[in-house]
């Protein structure tokens, strides 16, 4: 029997001003990264509600990554500072509940860092892939 290769499902929330532009630059420069990464555009990383992240896990995502402008560079001056606190607390809580901490990540990617975007996504996808399927936080209803 042939074992099918595990392909993780990764949701990446990217802020419109820096990280989404960084992803565009990765595209412009043809910097490859795994196709498992699917980007959702948000105006600012601070728009990302923990509920979105949990929802992604519930619906079968294996990893969720949040990208925003570097601290100090937020288009809205302070949005990513709130993101930083919220996600630090959320991730610590998920870890407290025994959920693999490597499944969640925050990265700051500027509009000029296409190469970083590609590298971060490649690394994150590999990390999540190594962890295997997300069993601890999944919605049993949604699996066939």
């Amino acid at each position, binding site marked *: 029997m042939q074992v099918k290769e595990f392909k993780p499902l990764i949701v990446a929330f990217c802020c419109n001003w820096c990280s989404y532009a960084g992803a565009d630059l990765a595209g412009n420069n043809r910097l490859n990264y795994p196709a498992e990464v699917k980007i959702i555009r948000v105006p600012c990383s601070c728009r990302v509600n923990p*509920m979105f992240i949990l929802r992604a896990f519930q619906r079968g995502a294996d990893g969720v990554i949040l990208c925003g402008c570097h601290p100090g560079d937020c288009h809205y001056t302070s949005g990513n500072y709130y993101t930083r606190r919220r996600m*630090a607390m959320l991730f*610590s809580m998920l870890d407290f*509940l*025994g959920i693999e901490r490597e499944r*969640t990540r925050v990265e700051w990617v500027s509009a000029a860092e296409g190469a970083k975007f590609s590298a971060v996504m490649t690394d994150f996808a590999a990390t999540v892939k190594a962890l295997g399927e997300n069993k601890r936080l999944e919605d049993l209803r949604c699996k066939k």
Partner: protein
Amino acid sequence: MQKVSQQQLIDKAVSLLADGTVSCVLGWTKGEFDYDITPALFTDEASLRQGFVWNDFCGANFSKYLVAKTRKCEGKILVFLKPCDTYSFNQLLTEHRFDREKVYAVGIPCEGMADIDKVKAICGDGISSIDCNGEKMAVQTIYEDAPVQVDASSVLAERCINCKSKKHVAYDELMGDEGDVIDSARFDEVAKLEAMTPDERFTFWQNELSRCIRCNACRDACPACTCEVCVFNNPKSGVENKSPANSFEEKMFHIIRAFHVAGRCTDCGECSRVCPQNIPLHLLNRKFIKDMNECYGEYQAGAEVGSRAPLVNYTTDDLEPGEVFNGRDSDA
């Protein structure tokens, strides 16, 4: 036994009603059993003398009731606040949830509340009456002739063993001392869990949370959960679920609830007290409090009105989300 007697509180309430300071009294009354105390609103002396109860089972935190009651009552409401209740009281004021002018708050000292499950563990089921007025608690069961004498300190609720403060941070009038903030070991249990491996933690929480029946008692009793419409009741929120359809939703409910009250939770412990399944829900809230204290400096919600909670605040050199795990990698 409590320092201030039931009679003193009734007399205080009666006199404040009589001189027109307040028009009604938010107090405790006996429910189905002696230990099953429920909140009640009194408006006259007769009902106070007949129904008002104050003993070791009056754990209910009345701050939350003020949100709805102040909207309804004409005149001021008298509320008796234990030290831990005063933090919730202040937190609700910080959030503008009720009009301070409509409340007359009397601070009362608290010697800690009893956990009925601990009493039952000593005396067994079938408790017909409990008298908390003596040195020891006298528990009468239907199976025994004489009441069992129980040491109040041996049946103290977990949240009272780890009481964080006997200080009244808000009141119009005080019966007894103002009290002090005390050192507590309330984070020890959280630290114990943190020291476990992720697998052990997962197993621990799976055992605990899978018992959840989604009765919503934790939410309904929580003084921080005073939302006009809870996200879990709101079909547009995307997380609406009134009962869990699977194991994920149990976790999701408790994570989101804990996150929503993070920075606003005063650690009053009502969630765990009211949980019929005895899930230690307060540990989730304490985890957030511990993390926020460690990462962003000590913060006690409700210690003062108008303070800015850590999650609606920031500094430019906060640690990165990945760095919260630094120094706790014994389990990595």
